[in-house]
């Protein structure tokens, strides 16, 4: 029995593209899928990291309180050994705080960088859907320049500079890469 043909399949069962199908549209949808996955992952991680940071700060506040309590009772001769031990342990934990505070900040940088990549993907999707863009090298050059302005941390800039040269039409590479004039993480400058 011959099956009635639907909109989405041919006689031999192969899918038939919709009327608006094009490689550009498909690429845009794939880019949108990547962007959506990254957005969902970032949102899930945001909530988890916020909880983790809140738990960490509570924990360290408790350690600090414990240290203060042991110092306040240090004159009690019956408990001096135990209080000394508590105090030493609290000091050891406190010395790890700076490293932990710095490590937690990497998530903030990561989510910011992922945000820039997400924006790049959605901009790229819109760009390629406009057929007048894909055949015009100067439009690609403008897109590259627009996306390049997103990447403003030293780490992002370094990657951009190392790859952008091969994407750019410009042969003049006399300009120093921007990453060379960027400060390192943690640098402090007073004006």
């Amino acid at each position, binding site marked *: 029995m011959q099956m009635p043909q639907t909109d989405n399949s041919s006689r031999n069962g192969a899918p038939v593209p919709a009327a608006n199908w094009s490689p550009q549209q498909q690429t845009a949808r794939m880019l949108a899928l990547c962007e959506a996955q990254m957005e969902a992952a970032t949102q899930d991680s*945001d909530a988890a*990291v*916020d909880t*983790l*940071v*809140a738990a960490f*700060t509570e924990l*360290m*506040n408790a350690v*600090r309180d414990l240290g203060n309590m042991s110092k306040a009772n240090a004159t009690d001769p019956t408990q001096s050994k135990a209080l000394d031990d508590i105090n030493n342990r609290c000091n050891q934990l406190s010395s790890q*705080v*700076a490293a932990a*505070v*710095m490590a*937690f*900040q*990497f*998530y*903030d*940088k990561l*989510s*910011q960088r992922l945000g820039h990549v997400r924006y790049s993907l959605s901009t790229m999707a819109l760009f390629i859907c406009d057929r007048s863009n894909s055949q015009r090298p100067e439009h690609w050059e403008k897109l590259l320049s627009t996306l390049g302005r997103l990447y*403003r*941390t*030293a780490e992002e*800039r370094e990657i951009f500079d190392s790859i952008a040269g091969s994407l750019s039409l410009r042969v003049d590479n006399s300009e120093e890469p*921007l990453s060379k*004039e*960027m*400060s*390192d*993480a*943690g*640098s*402090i*400058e*007073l*004006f």
Partner: protein
Amino acid sequence: MSSVILAVDDSASMRQMVRFTLESAGYEVIQAADGVEALDYAKGGKADLVLTDVNMPRMDGLTLVRELRGLSSYKGIPILVLTTEAGQETKAQGKQAGATGWIVKSFNPEQLLATIQRVL
């Protein structure tokens, strides 16, 4: 009485880290999630120092610096920018807006506290 620091960042975890660091050193911390929230506070409340991020929704950090410098009570107080932005151009914009200093994330708690002590 402890100094009051207005900490502005759209990232909740960054605000927590900044608050934890500053409160551990005895400062009182007021938190704001963006420039609009910070400016709302500043119009009615006093801070001895402002520590702000740059990229935030609704109002970015550099606009906030300019707006704060327009308020008579914030003309002379230190405003430190704490950001991932590391380029000289953006830094120059911050200086022109009236920022006192520029700190590139990730911050080291001890260095942050030393810088705050220096400018307060």
